[in-house]
Structures are given as structure tokens and as C-alpha cells.
């Protein structure tokens, strides 16, 4: 194939059942324009190292499974083109700041534990009342939705925690992913606000441990910009501390259900495209 090039992949191998310590192995692979690191790994596994392990699924930057430390940067293997790295030798390691299960497979358990700590769901003080007697819908203007929409795109790939220098030294720091989700739900006008999450985000290992290195936003493959969400969260916490910015809880059932049904009935369907 024209434009093919031989690239050496240095891969950090570790098999907990056979190795006492990780070691490096090199594989020469002929790569072509557009070939991703993930495709190269498949090629290595097929032709040279059948026991090589990694985690991947969708191959299109949606599932967040194939996060790896490629040439000293946390990246999704499926979104990283080999020739774009502009290097003849490419090192691949499992994501740092996570336990290593085998070869390139990190254990993302710390990510999910931290994610759970910030209560990543809508919390309402009138929750039970609304669940038992739903009277209508909670409406959102486009502006209200835009306040947090960017932060809903997180795919939980864990690259941000691998990039964060604070996570590198403080294993208990909630980290960019969890703090971003704390802000995402707190900024949602259907939620009762950050007050329900103060015990985790306004704590020693919470938002203020972020020292704004910006590495998480640099690494994020989905443009979620965790560094920005954390700074917005800090601003919310500071305003809250001084008694400003207390969010008005949205009134439950702002529109009677019958009105919603009527509005939907009046909504004209799109014209038929198939006869």
C-alpha cells in the first residue's frame, strides 16, 4: 500500500499470573495513512503477540473503553492515528493512576467509585411527593439546558484522571470526571442544587484540590472540558459560602399533564418521505 511505514511499538506488558513485574516488548508494524493505534494493536495481536490484552469495543470514540497512555499522553486508541503521532517509536502503556489488570487493561474501579460519591443523578427534596403523585413535567429553556449540556457528554473513559497531576499524588482526590458530574447535576435546574453534594465536593479531597493545570481538558476526547466544570463548581461553592447564588428550586409540575398531551397532539408531524 502506498505511504506505508514501519513503526516500532513499545508496549508495556504485564501478566499478573506469569510476571512478577511489568516489562517492555517491541513490535515492528507496517502502518498506513489513517491507521489507528487500536488497529495497530489488533495487527500486533494477530501476527506477533496473541496474548496481548487491552480493552476496546466501539472503535469510534463513543464507549470510552480503549483509553491508553500513548507516547506519554492519555488518549483513546481508536481515535489516535499512528502517523499523526509523528514518531518512529511509539510507546503504549496502560492508563496511569489506575491499578493495572493485565497488559494495557486498567482497572477503572476508582473512577466509578468517585463518580458514585458525588451522587450523579437529579436530587429533589420533593422527590417522593413527585414520584408518588406526578402532576406534570419539568420544563427547561434552551439556556437552562445549555448551562450544563457540555458536561453530559462524558463517556467515562478515565483519561482525565490519568492526566491529572493532583490525582497522581492524591489518590483520594475526586478528580476531574466526578467533579464535572457534580457540577453537571448541580447546574441542572431540575436538581435542588449543590447543597446535596457538599459533603463530597466541598471537602478536603473535593473541588479545591484542583489547582488548574488544565491537563484534564487537554486529554478529554469529547470536548467536555472538565477543568471548566470544576472552576464553575468552585464559583458556585464560593457564592454559596457567601450567601449568594442560592438556586431557586424549580417548581414541580410546571405544566399540567393534560396540557402537555394537548401540545403534543397539536404538534404537526414531519412530512412523509416514503410513500
Amino acid at each position: 500500500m502506498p505511504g506505508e511505514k514501519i513503526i516500532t511499538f513499545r508496549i508495556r506488558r504485564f501478566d499478573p499470573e506469569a510476571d512478577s513485574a511489568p516489562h517492555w516488548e517491541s513490535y515492528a508494524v507496517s502502518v498506513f495513512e489513517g491507521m489507528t493505534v487500536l488497529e495497530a494493536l489488533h495487527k500486533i495481536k494477530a501476527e506477533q503477540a496473541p496474548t496481548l490484552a487491552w480493552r476496546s469495543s466501539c472503535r469510534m470514540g463513543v464507549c470510552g473503553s480503549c483509553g491508553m497512555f500513548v507516547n506519554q499522553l492519555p488518549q483513546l486508541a481508536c481515535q489516535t492515528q499512528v502517523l499523526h503521532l509523528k514518531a518512529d517509536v511509539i510507546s503504549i502503556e496502560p492508563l496511569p493512576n489506575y491499578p493495572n489488570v493485565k497488559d494495557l487493561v486498567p482497572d477503572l474501579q476508582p473512577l466509578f467509585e468517585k463518580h458514585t460519591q458525588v451522587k450523579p443523578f437529579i436530587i429533589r427534596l420533593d422527590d417522593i411527593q413527585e414520584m408518588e403523585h406526578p402532576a406534570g413535567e419539568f420544563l427547561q429553556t434552551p439556556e437552562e439546558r445549555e448551562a450544563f449540556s457540555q458536561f453530559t457528554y462524558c463517556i467515562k473513559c478515565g483519561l482525565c484522571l490519568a492526566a491529572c497531576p493532583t490525582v497522581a499524588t492524591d489518590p483520594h482526590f475526586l478528580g476531574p470526571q466526578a467533579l464535572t458530574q457534580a457540577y453537571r447535576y448541580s447546574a441542572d435546574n431540575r436538581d435542588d442544587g449543590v447543597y446535596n453534594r457538599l459533603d463530597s465536593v466541598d471537602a478536603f479531597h473535593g473541588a479545591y484540590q484542583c489547582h488548574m493545570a488544565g491537563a484534564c481538558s487537554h486529554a478529554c476526547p469529547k470536548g467536555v472540558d472538565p477543568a471548566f466544570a470544576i472552576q464553575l463548581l468552585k464559583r458556585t461553592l464560593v457564592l454559596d459560602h457567601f450567601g449568594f447564588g442560592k438556586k431557586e428550586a424549580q417548581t414541580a409540575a410546571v405544566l399540567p399533564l393534560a396540557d402537555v398531551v394537548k401540545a403534543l397532539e397539536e404538534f404537526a408531524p414531519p412530512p412523509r418521505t416514503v410513500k
Partner: protein
Amino acid sequence: MKNNQPARRLGLRGWVYAGKYSFERYLYLGHRLSGLGLVAYMVLHIVETANRMRGEQAWAELMALFASPPFKVIEYLLFALAVFHAMNGIRLFLVELAFFSGKPQEPVYPYKSSVLKHRPLTYVVMILAGLLMALGGSSLFFP
């Protein structure tokens, strides 16, 4: 974590090695190192001024030592550390309250993070820091 899983925590290496990350990651490192330098200086400063207790002559000898060219350079480095830390601190104060970072918006590729949005502020602050360092240097070395 299972016992046979290496932790892979980067530790101090992850803290110090800024590698291929953005300019702000280097400023983070500089801010921490300059902060540690200033704390170390404060301790040394207390030790230094405690020399006054050893008598007037000991104090005069110490002051004469500090007036020598090598100490002038050290004094300037200390000044530069303080200027960098203060100016970058102003940037962090503003950025950590989400000023100069725009508003949340739908991520559309190529993504532009808030770090890039506040980079003009970063440049202005660093240029001001450079000017202050130059002014301080000229008044120290060419009084």
C-alpha cells in the same frame, strides 16, 4: 485493588513531568515550585535575621556577605520567583472563579477548551510578569 495489580500511580513524576501537556500545565509546575521556593526562603529568612542575636558585628558581616555579587543574583532569583508566583496567582484567582473562560457550550470538533479561551489572559499576565522582572533586575543590577 487486588494484591497482584500494580498501582501505576505516577506520584511525584506525574506532578513534575509536564511532558506534552499544554502551557498551563507548565505554569502549574512553576507555581508549585516557586511556592515551595518562597516557603524555603521564609524559613531561611528567619534563620538569617536570627543572626542579629549574635551581636552587631556578626550582623554587619552577614550583611556584607549578602551585598556580594553571588547573593545579588540569588536575591534576584528570589524576586523573580515572587513576581511569577504573584502574577500567576492573580491569573489563577480569576480563572478558578471561572472568569475569562467563556460559557458552557455544545462541544463541536475541533474542541476549544476553557484553557484555550483564557490563554490571552495567561499571555498578558506572563508578559506583565516578564516586564516586572526586567524592571526589578535593572534597578537591582544597575541602580
